[in-house]
């Protein structure tokens, strides 16, 4: 940590300070071999299959934004953490911390949205808890969801990417940065024209279909806080390989790109809530792309780069104009509270 005795907003940004807090505090004290693997879900051996287990808290401001709300996000976030670990999500818990005076109608809307999302991806919300705190002691509504899912033992390394080799292809299921920008526009009530909608979506259908149909999936991670750039730099940090990606191949919706340009945000670092980055053996890339193309959450798929032997530990971006630059983890926060 920084040597100081205070939690700063940056500790929740998903970038370097968040990581330091996780490693130097939580891992240090809660540490065990399952937690320290630092994957999106804990993968726990059980007799027969493996169990994936994850938890996430949601504090997004505002609660409703184009393309979603805190309820949909709370289900998708946890479902996606299970899905990208290679698991089939089964059960969720839901914990609500509600500020005194919060409108029941809004809570109803949010709960309905959670139920619809859970139903659409075949998971059940099986346990929960509610606490109400004094006005001013939380901001309207916070939700925590935990989830469990089952995965085949052959998929148990997908979260950590143990089998990645130079030559593997890096694939993403569509355009980036829409969630972070949609939330920012909604939060600041910016009248910027254009139509920016969050990509918030459950990915378990897509990942399940791919894992069923093909082998060769070496790694999956959803590119949430910290964006695509943070996933890529974490992926190769302290590893014996490097990553090369082409700016040209990374898709960004024109509206999203325009807003990013306008406000000076680098879309590579802006959050997504329905994007999975996959590392796939080269001979299997074709079939993964075909499956994605026919799926509603994957039709805009692209191969954005590959794993390389050179510059181990570093991600290099080939810029559109032919230059090259390094991509590092998000330092500080680009946007406050996007999930």
């Amino acid at each position, binding site marked *: 940590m920084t040597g100081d005795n205070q939690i700063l*907003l940056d500790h929740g940004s998903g970038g370097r300070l968040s990581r330091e807090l996780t490693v130097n505090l939580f891992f240090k004290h809660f540490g065990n071999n399952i937690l320290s693997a630092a994957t999106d879900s804990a993968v726990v051996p059980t007799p027969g299959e493996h169990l994936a287990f994850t938890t996430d808290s949601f504090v997004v401001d505002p609660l409703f934004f184009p393309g979603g709300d805190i309820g949909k996000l709370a289900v998708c976030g946890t479902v996606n953490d299970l899905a990208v670990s290679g698991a089939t999500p089964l059960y969720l818990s839901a914990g609500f911390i509600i500020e005194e005076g919060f409108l029941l109608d809004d809570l109803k809307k949010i709960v309905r949205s959670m139920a619809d999302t859970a139903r659409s991806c075949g998971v059940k919300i099986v346990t929960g808890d509610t606490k109400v705190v004094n006005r001013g002691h939380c901001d309207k509504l916070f939700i925590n969801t935990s989830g469990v899912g089952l995965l085949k033992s052959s998929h148990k390394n997908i979260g950590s990417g143990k089998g990645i080799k130079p030559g593997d292809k890096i694939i993403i299921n569509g355009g980036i940065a829409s969630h972070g920008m949609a939330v920012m526009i909604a939060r*600041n009530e910016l009248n910027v024209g254009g139509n920016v909608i969050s990509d918030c979506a459950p990915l378990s259908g897509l990942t399940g279909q791919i894992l069923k149909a093909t082998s060769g999936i070496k790694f999956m991670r959803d590119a949430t806080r910290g964006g695509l750039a943070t996933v890529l730099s974490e992926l190769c940090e302290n590893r014996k390989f490097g990553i090369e990606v082409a700016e040209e191949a990374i898709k960004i919706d*024109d509206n999203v*790109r325009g807003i990013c340009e306008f406000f000076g945000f680098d879309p590579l670092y802006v959050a997504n809530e329905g994007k999975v980055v996959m590392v796939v053996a080269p001979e299997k890339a074709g079939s993964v792309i075909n499956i994605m193309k026919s799926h509603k959450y994957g039709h805009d798929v692209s191969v954005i780069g590959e794993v390389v032997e050179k510059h181990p530990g570093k991600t290099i971006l080939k810029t559109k*104009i032919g*230059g*090259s630059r390094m991509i590092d983890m998000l330092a500080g926060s680009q946007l406050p509270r996007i999930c």
Partner: protein
Amino acid sequence: MRFIDEYYDTSLIEPLLRSIKKISKKEVRFMEVCGGHTMAIRKFGLPSLLPENIRLLSGPGCPVCVTDRWFIDKAIALARMPGNIITTFGDLVRVPGSSSTLEKEKANGADIRIVYSPLDALALAKEFPEKNIIFLGIGFETTSPAVAVTVANAKKEHLTNFSLLSSHKIMPPAMKAIIHEGIKIDGYICPGHVSTITGPEMYREIVGKYGLGCVISGFEPTDLLQTILMLVDQVESGKPKLEIQYKRAVKPDGNLKAKKIMAEVFETCDDWWRGFGIIPESGLSLNKKYKPFDAGEFFNFNEVPKPEEDKACICGEILKGLKTPAECLLFRIKCNPGNPVGACMVSSEGACHAYYKYQG
């Protein structure tokens, strides 16, 4: 995407690069004095495309980076006083003062709000008439007109609970200071947005008196490459001049309305720049008519000691183009964006931040 893709068009980029390589013979060093250019150059990976005899240096173009540590200490002192709300642009909250940052003060309970426009501070002044709203004004000619409008509006609306802590600066005196310090450069990539306000004439003296080429540049890859080509051409032909590459935004007279409001509200003053010390007539302070809105009139800063700058941090030399961030002993190890020692690492426009983020 229209108005963006054109500037990345490889059928324009490649001929520009070919021309630069063809005519560039001499070893040259061009300095950009705008944080936006620093970021753009690194973000597009331009140094990896240019021939080795052309070096690009980052000068004192990032407003956060050149700001005095005393300014941060004064802002922190204000933040600690009950009844004050500090309003600021986001970058400033993480800049280290002598013993704290505004971000830490915020976590400690101080009321510090990040605003996107200085006018948001006036809205707060009206919403909370019992509080003092202080806006931390930093930046060059691009941001100072909006701050001038804010102060003028505060006077018009007879607000008595709004004040400005100003560290606004103007660019040409620093550009001259670079030359006076004997730093060897062969031309300036002049700031685009500053020049949309001021117009090009303020650089005339640098060309005439010091024989140094000045090209006002846009921020896209084609803009910057065309600017570099224009500067190379000037050096190779031995004819330094003042040229505008960024013609779609910079007009000969600049923005008359913005210049008028700045002249109405501000006067120049001697100001302190990190790496340079005091540069005469390089800062902007409120003039007599608007002095009542100067935070210095409201609050007594005598008890805020003038701090020493960190000895190991070479931000000053980096801002002068004498050293690159990679030559700093603190770079990456002790000083990184998560834990910045110097201001050049804090601001997203700072040279150290840009090197850290894009160059590895």
